[in-house]
């Protein structure tokens, strides 16, 4: 494989190209205290990115600007500001069609403005990395944290991972490329973090030396030919068979969609190996569970500690990947639970819907607590919700 043959050589910046597993697991790591935006800078510095395109929108602007600094320093091949988010995502597609490893970031209304591109990226099998620092999208305007935005991209066909912490974020950014670029996957990936809670707060992050970098993207492993105006999907964009009114055209279009969903399924195997599973679980023998993703898990952990102090045993399940969704893992992890709480930073409860669709006896799911629009979710709010529901139950679940 061309990529493997480059291991041990040096890129233009002089970084040593190492085996991804070495970078992820074996290379010595040093503790740094940094914001999520700074995590982007440090991860992309080690990701051998060819092209990054940006457009300012809170809260991702700072991270995007830092990637610009990496371009000045020679860590990123090309960098420029697009005309708006739709243009940015279209330009990312062009770069990826041409065989580049691409990185971009967006948030909130920017995500929605760019939306048309995401299923196009998927159908074209472009392994672009999109970092979404999620925030409110609705009127009245809010720049504050809210995860509704993730629920809106769930069925675009992209891989979607949701980081709980700055450390997750650093690791997901690097590992995400390795999964997204596998030839049997080869899909865009959205690495999501909760805006401000992760992007603008500092946390301990353990990172390897910037003397090391991932192997470059190898476009010759692409499951589609690199950009060519005479072959699909580009050919289809100018001469689409989907415009033909016959069964075979419809069936081909449907099969094309199925294949991109199949590619998402294939990512499970690679993701499980790198992330150690699609979920993380603690005390799932408990009758009460908290199941969620992102910083709702972090708040849930603190609620578990508070409840334990009162003698109430609660377990927790952290969902790392929203797409592919860990249906079987969630089913197994919740099999002993009598009540499943799903705290979320949005008003619609998309995560609760996913969990309800995954498990038997889904009346066990309590949708909430919910906060949104920038509200924090103090652990006491989760504790209060759990106690309120328990009070309504006849049986005691105290240990």
């Amino acid at each position, binding site marked *: 494989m061309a990529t493997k043959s480059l291991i041990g050589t040096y890129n233009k910046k002089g970084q040593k190209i190492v085996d991804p597993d070495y970078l992820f697991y074996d290379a010595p790591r040093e503790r740094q205290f940094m914001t999520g935006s700074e995590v982007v800078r440090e991860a992309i510095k080690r990701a051998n990115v060819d092209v990054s395109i940006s457009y300012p929108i809170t809260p991702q602007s700072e991270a995007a600007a830092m990637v610009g600094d990496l371009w000045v320093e020679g860590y990123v091949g090309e960098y420029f500001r697009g005309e708006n988010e739709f243009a940015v995502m279209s330009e990312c597609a062009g770069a990826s069609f041409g065989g580049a490893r691409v990185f971009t970031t967006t948030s909130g209304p920017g995500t929605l403005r760019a939306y048309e591109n995401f299923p196009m990226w998927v159908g074209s099998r472009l392994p672009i990395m999109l970092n979404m620092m999620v925030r409110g999208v609705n009127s009245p305007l809010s720049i504050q944290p809210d995860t509704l935005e993730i629920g809106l991209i769930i069925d675009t066909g992209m891989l979607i991972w949701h980081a709980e912490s700055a450390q997750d974020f650093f690791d997901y950014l690097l590992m995400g490329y390795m999964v997204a670029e596998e030839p*049997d996957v080869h899909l865009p990936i959205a690495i999501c973090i909760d805006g401000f809670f992760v992007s603008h707060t500092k946390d301990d992050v353990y990172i390897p030396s910037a003397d090391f970098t991932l192997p470059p993207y190898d476009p010759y*492993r692409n499951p589609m030919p690199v950009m060519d105006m005479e072959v699909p999907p580009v050919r*289809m964009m100018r001469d689409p068979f989907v415009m033909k009114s016959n069964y075979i055209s419809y*069936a081909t279009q449907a099969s094309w969609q*199925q294949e991109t969903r199949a590619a998402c399924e294939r990512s499970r195997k690679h993701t499980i190996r790198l992330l150690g599973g699609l979920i993380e679980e603690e005390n799932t023998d408990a009758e009460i569970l908290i199941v969620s993703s992102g910083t709702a898990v972090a708040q849930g952990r603190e609620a578990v500690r508070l409840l334990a102090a009162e003698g109430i045993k609660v377990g927790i399940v952290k969902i790392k990947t929203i797409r592919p969704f860990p249906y079987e893992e969630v089913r197994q992890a919740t099999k002993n639970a009598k009540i499943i709480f799903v705290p979320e930073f949005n008003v619609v409860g998309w995560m609760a819907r996913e969990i309800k669709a995954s498990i038997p006896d889904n009346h066990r799911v309590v949708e909430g607590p919910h906060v949104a629009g920038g509200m924090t979710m103090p652990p006491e709010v989760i504790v209060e919700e759990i106690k309120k529901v328990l009070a309504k139950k006849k049986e005691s679940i105290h240990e």
Partner: protein
Amino acid sequence: MSKYSVLKGPEAFLPPAAACEGVVLPDPGQGLIQGDIVQETLAMEEAARKFLSAKNPTLFPGPLVLWNWNETAARKAAAIKRLYDVLKSHNSNALHIPMPDYRPKYPKIDPAIEINPNHPNLTIWYNKIDVCMFVGVHCHMANLSLKIIRGGTDCYTIAMCAQAGHEDAMITFRDATPEKIDILTNTVERLKASGDY
């Protein structure tokens, strides 16, 4: 949920992608037979038996081996030609139908001499192909085509993939090299000589 098997069709108006039914691609050294992971040698034997017992065994080489874009492609092409020659010597109906690119063909494809991933069933039906092997076809196009074949034809499909394999084929190999294609050819020759197929 009962285990999904990747069987020859016609399966359905719109069959599912095998990956979405829980079929997982093999690791290096392994292959798939009808959705089950097996040792690659076993898959070689099964593919050889299918070729030898077919009425119209057919190879569908794609652009990755039809165009002389690197030294490995040329060696693979030679290996595929050798496999075809062995099949042809066993069965004069054996075919070799290229897929040189993926362009839609207008006003319609000539199914006697070409195959297109978007409507491969036309070529399968026209030539009454009962066993075929894809080789050198970009993975997305191969999966697309293999699933459409399973949906609408009774053709048994084999995929010789240079990457991770194709679960939408009934038999798949991964990490294909010229040497691996030669092993398949040698297996065909061995079983043919033994008469055990």
